[in-house]
């Protein structure tokens, strides 16, 4: 068992690095830098949102209230659960607990899938209500359709981009699950789990901001 783990270690050290520690540090820094590029990528959408919400506060509030806040909140909880299972997977890897790594990763994947399923349901609701931007867009009870459509454009762009990142995350998790089942990870080599964990938590953080910005605009007005 020990020699197998050692074999896995030396296999894992890439040519350009001198030590395992250097490789781990480089990989972690690389993922953090990738995450900051993602922050700036989403940032453009947050800017557009900020500008147009400041221009059309009432219309945005009305449009926001057409989203189901309870489903949104529940979905937020689902994603937070997936972050918990993800960090527990990382912890299991740090402790070299092979079976736990696999189970926590599978749980994370399932919870991510639930989130995406709920999102698909929500989008379908929007489709049925004619709230999808484009030629058949119509929002009841507002004269100025343009800004309402803007809200939904931003809604679909931001949640769509977020969902795309979730799908990529799911793909990464599947890859990790296969590797974990082969016993690839140990206390001395768990960088891929660590790094995918960082990605997953980042995608969660994006949703932590999307939820209040999209679902919770002036709910006290009641509609």
């Amino acid at each position, binding site marked *: 068992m020990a020699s197998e783990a050692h074999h896995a270690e030396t296999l894992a050290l890439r*040519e*350009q*690095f*001198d030590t395992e520690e*250097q490789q781990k*540090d*480089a990989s972690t*820094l*690389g993922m953090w*830098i*990738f995450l*900051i*590029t*993602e922050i*700036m*990528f*989403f*940032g*453009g*959408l947050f*800017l*557009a949102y900020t*500008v*147009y919400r400041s*221009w*059309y506060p009432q219309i945005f509030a009305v449009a926001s209230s057409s989203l189901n806040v309870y489903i949104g909140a529940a979905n937020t909880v689902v994603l937070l659960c997936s972050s918990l299972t993800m960090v527990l997977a990382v912890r299991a890897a740090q402790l070299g607990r092979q079976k736990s790594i696999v189970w926590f990763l599978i749980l994370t994947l399932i919870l991510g899938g639930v989130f995406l399923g709920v999102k698909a349901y929500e989008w379908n609701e929007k489709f049925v209500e004619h709230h999808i*931007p*484009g030629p058949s867009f119509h929002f009841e009870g507002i004269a*100025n*359709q*343009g*800004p309402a*459509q*803007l809200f939904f*454009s*931003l809604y679909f*762009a931001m949640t769509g*981009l977020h969902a795309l990142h979730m799908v990529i995350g799911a793909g990464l998790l599947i890859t990790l699950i296969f590797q974990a089942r082969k016993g690839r990870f140990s206390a001395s080599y768990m960088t891929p789990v660590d790094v995918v964990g960082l990605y997953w938590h980042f995608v969660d953080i994006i949703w932590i901001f999307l939820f209040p910005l999209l679902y919770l605009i002036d709910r006290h007005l009641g509609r």
Partner: protein
Amino acid sequence: MITAAVQEREHYLNASYGIKSWLLTKDHKRIGLLYLATITLFFFLGGAFATLIRVEPLTPQGGLVSSETYNKLFTMHGVAMIFFFLIPSIPATLGNFFLPMMIGARDLAFPRINLLSWYLLVVGGLFALFAMLAGGVDTGWTFYTPYSTTYSNSWVIATALGIFVAGFSSILTGLNFIVTIHRMRAPGMTWFRLPLFVWSMYGTSLIQVLGTPVLAVTIVLLFCERVFQIGIFNPALGGDPVLFQHLFWFYSHPAVYIMILPAMGVISELVSTFSRKPVFGYKFVAFSSMAIAVLGFLVWGHHLFVSTQSVYAGMVFSFLSYFVAIPSAIKVFNWTATLYKGSISYATPMLYAFGFIGLFTIGGLTGLFVASLGIDVHVTDTYFVVAHFHYIMVGGTIMAYLGGVHYWWPKMTGRMYPEIWARLSALIIFLGFNLTFFPQFILGYMGMPRRYHVYPPEFQVLHVLSTAGASVLAVGYAMPMVYFIWSLRYGKLAPANPWGATGLEWKTASPPPLQNFDETPVMTHEAYDYSTVIEEVIEVG
């Protein structure tokens, strides 16, 4: 291509053969050469468009091409030159090749991502090329809305998609460089012993990583607007076209620093080596690279002075734009001070360095004119701006790029280029460049708008001078193509350190071995310490 005489020793070029060994390589040196070939193709493509752009205004009524075609020509010239030549040029060729060597590493942190970056540039380039061949795009490289999103009937999406993909090439290169510089330095290679080229690569990488994603999301929004008419940039639907301009220039202004900062890094190396002196004020130059990277992000609104951007924001951006000139000026002063009491050689790379210092200074000073809100109202969208940025991009970046390619050619290929022809080309380029672009300052000041192919007859003399200069410039650029290729077979064999330069890349053979160094070097002295270099200079001229 390379004669057998060079091949007794194994190095990165002969370690493996065949097309797969190049297309699936993880070697940063080979990837640097892959980039070199790719960007050279795009340079000549952009140059072909430039030729047509200059031939058309030989007469005041135009007549060679229609207005619509002319719009496509300057758009595609800009797209090809900026996204597929200038932005990758120095970082992806010279940076890829020499960054690991300069810090004493065997390769970059992520070699496979490095290869992916090259493929992304190629794929992006193919999209853009497709758009050009299928009919072109006519929105200007700036893609302003609502023309690009609603009214243009040209290949906007294909071109934008190409730029989007190429953007990820840029982001991944920046990411790779940052991690490499932080985590892969050889023992003894502290931050302040790094060559200044490395500092400029670091600054450039920061810009690539922080700015390019915003361009990417802007293109996504452009796509959504054009395809789904969501209204985000359309006033009729409640949107603001100026929001596009903010998002676009948030990246595109720092992008110009992506283009000039590596060039400045090259010049630091050239000025030091060919004065045989350490760069004056090393820390000032290093910190100036950082300052340019940071301040470059705070000035983009100077591209929006004549839009509906508020006057107050205009004042803020104008004020900040003056600040960003300061670190650039510090560098020019420091290079000049490096020359003082130096042992100056006039080898080709140094000629390019001199050209850079003079032309970049002119370009930079005219930048101050356009940074001034009041003056810019008159000269914006005229040939004055065109001249300003070509002095920086062509008189600056391209001269530094050529200087760098000449300087490092012996290391990359193991061959010397022919010095006389090289110096002649440098001179022709310098003369051709000035003849092309100096008249454009005058044209612009006198009121000639940019992007117009017809004009009042009193501007004709200046246009003819500019076009004449362009033909000289074209000759100047063609010559290195010929003699560099010639040198691969017939050039003198290069020693490890033909210039007597400092820097770890000169301590290994030309061409370098596959792992760069036979043993991991240990850095024991400061940067630019000429007392450590044994005289090994080939007689030049």
